[in-house]
């Protein structure tokens, strides 16, 4: 159903009961006026000289209209006070001059006399029910037929002569005829406001419907063009607001689409970089294995040993890298989520040291750890924190020299845990130390691996930084004397009750 038809139907639905109510009120008031007029005419008849004698002598003739059998014509005879025949029973506004010309006229009244038992000698008299006279208890007259949408009006009166055949008189008349019989008011004027309302609705709705249709067309065109062109709507009404809302919504859609494109691009880049990151150590590992196979017989054992050690190194690096990439996928998002649980730092340190000890041994580096006797329990994400610590330990091993040391030291200090990773390697040149702390090597350059240099701390240190930040732990880097690096990770311990 379109807007125009809906408005039309709504208007009709509202107007019809309203009109019906007005018509009913009009009919009621016309009936009431007719009843009062008939009662007045009858009273006048009672007051005429010899009215009693005439009525009691011949009740039928007394009550007949002046021209018997011709309702609506001027009755002759006994009613000189009503020469114009029918009383003007219309609404008072119609005035005493009778109905205006052109309007239907009321029929002349007819009187029926009844005795005290409500029996009539007039065969045409309608039969009255026994209790009808009770309606007169409160007044001089009572309306008998109360059908509103009928032109017939009947009023019963008590005459001043209670003992004869004229004890009661029923007077019958009609209301003026209305439009469509007696149902609708006599004039069609009431149609004017109804028609005006309908026309006003259609006229008011026309431009609105037009504007909505134009907006619809604009929106379709905009959608077809990928929401690049916003629909233009003039004016300052609700249609304009609708247009503005659509413009805002399409801007949001464009923004989301752009964000999705960005994410997809970032994911593609991440995959490409990851593939690159993984393929390089894998290639190196492959080369080592190939040299091993080719050289098993020809090379010196010491040389083979060296190749094996480097192959182990690559495999270890590869494992660390893949762990870091999976952690990066969790923390390098808009809103990283930590899966916190109570974790035992002593056990975590033991795992990290066990993981790197084989490679440290292969490189001739002594790796030791010391933890407090009682478990140090923190509320943290196990995987993330373990990888963060692992990266620091692994870096300390990778950039150390044969015969060097790496120590992992965990202490409690005044409601905090302090985890330190110390080495006696080359340390980090002060300018780079500053940038290390500031940036956490987020740049793409940080992903690349340089052998021997500090630049290759790369993704591992970036992960450590991010994890520390997410946990609100302090991560500090200090060069040691005479050489080496100390990395300290410190954070609050949960209150003792939580660790119990």
């Amino acid at each position, binding site marked *: 159903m379109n807007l125009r038809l809906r408005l039309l139907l709504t208007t009709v639905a509202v107007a019809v009961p309203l009109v019906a109510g007005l018509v009913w009120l009009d009919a009621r008031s016309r009936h009431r006026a007719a009843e009062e007029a008939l009662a007045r005419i009858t009273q006048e008849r009672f007051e005429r000289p010899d009215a009693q004698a005439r009525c009691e002598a011949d009740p039928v003739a007394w009550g007949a209209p002046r021209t018997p059998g011709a309702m609506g014509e001027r009755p002759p005879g006994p009613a000189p006070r009503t020469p114009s025949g029918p009383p003007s029973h219309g609404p008072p506004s119609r005035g005493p001059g009778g109905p205006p010309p052109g309007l239907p006229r009321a029929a002349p009244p007819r009187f029926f006399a009844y005795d005290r038992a409500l029996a009539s000698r007039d065969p045409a008299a309608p039969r009255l029910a026994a209790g009808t006279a009770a309606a007169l208890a409160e007044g001089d007259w009572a309306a008998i037929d109360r059908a509103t949408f009928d032109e017939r009006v009947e009023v019963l009166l008590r005459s001043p002569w209670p003992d004869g055949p004229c004890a009661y008189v029923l007077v019958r008349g009609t209301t003026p005829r209305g439009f469509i019989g007696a149902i609708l008011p006599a004039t069609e004027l009431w149609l004017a406001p109804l028609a005006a309302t309908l026309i006003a609705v259609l006229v008011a709705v026309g431009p609105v419907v037009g504007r909505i249709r134009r907006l619809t067309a604009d929106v379709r065109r905009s959608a077809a063009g990928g929401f690049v062109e916003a629909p233009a709507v003039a004016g300052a009404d609700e249609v304009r607001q609708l247009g503005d809302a659509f413009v805002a919504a399409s801007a949001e859609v464009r923004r989301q689409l752009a964000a999705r494109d960005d994410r997809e691009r970032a994911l593609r880049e991440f995959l490409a970089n990851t593939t690159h990151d993984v393929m390089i150590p894998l290639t190196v590992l492959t080369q080592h294995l190939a040299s091993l196979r080719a050289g098993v017989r020809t090379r010196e054992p010491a040389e083979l040993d060296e190749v094996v050690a480097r192959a182990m190194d690559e*495999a*270890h690096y590869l*494992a660390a890298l893949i*762990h870091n990439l*999976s*952690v990066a996928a969790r923390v390098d998002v808009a809103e990283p989520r930590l*899966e916190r*649980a109570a*974790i035992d730092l002593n*056990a975590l340190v*033991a*795992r990290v040291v*066990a*993981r790197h*000890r*084989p*490679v440290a*041994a292969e490189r001739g580096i*002594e790796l*030791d*750890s*010391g*933890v*407090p*006797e009682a478990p140090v329990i923190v509320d943290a*994400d*196990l*995987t*993330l924190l373990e*990888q963060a610590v692992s990266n620091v330990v692994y870096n300390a091993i990778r950039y150390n020299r044969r015969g060097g*040391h*790496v*120590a*992992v*030291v*965990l*202490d409690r*200090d005044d409601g905090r845990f302090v985890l330190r990773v*110390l*080495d*006696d390697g080359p340390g980090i040149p002060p300018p780079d130390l500053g940038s290390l702390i500031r940036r956490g090597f987020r740049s793409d350059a940080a992903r690349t691996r340089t052998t021997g240099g500090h630049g290759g701390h790369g993704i591992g240190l970036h992960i450590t930084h991010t994890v520390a930040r997410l946990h609100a732990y302090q991560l500090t880097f200090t060069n040691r004397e005479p050489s080496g690096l100390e990395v300290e990770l410190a954070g609050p311990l949960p209150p003792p009750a939580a660790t119990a």
Partner: protein
Amino acid sequence: MSDRVLLIEDDRELGAQIVATLHKAGFGVTWWTEGRVPDPASIDLLIVDLMLPGMYGLDILKALRATSDTPALVLSARNDTGDKIRALKLGADDYMTKPFWPEELVERVRARLRRPTLARNDVIEVGPLRIGLAERQVWVGERAVDLTRAEFDLLATLARRPGAAVTRAALVDAAIDADRDGAERTLDVHVSRLRKKLGDAGMIQTVWGVGYRLAGSAPT
């Protein structure tokens, strides 16, 4: 008698390697490739993969823990916090994330099987050392050694965890009056005197970057 280890790992290649590694390290190994609940009486340690055909590793762990506290080591290829936390909550003693080195595996297994020395609470014996905690008396072999209060506390702290490195901070906390200046430097002085008194220079080892360790029977 060697410790009996049950390995539940569905990957043939990895399973075979782990079995070989553990055999070489002196363990008796049984290997299942499908998940089902083991009889705790027949094993000393369980190594279980999390993703298994038949029965999920965590369910095996849960069923095992219902009846026994046999040590259990979980292997996981998915580096997933939720998996590990669930495993630890269900009673796993430790977990290992793949990949791992054979030495690493052996170390973790040994750590789980290491039983606390059932010594009397008030006497610790490490090698030739005997430390009476109640009477605060120390013997090397049959020789009683006279130690100061700080020296005794130092030795007792080291001896409670033989073979493990104890941090300098922990030693200072345990043995040295914190109010005195240069507590850490004092520590070295105390250790040097202690070494002299014990006579066996090899007993108390310096651990680079950490602190000291009492060389003991337990491997590091």
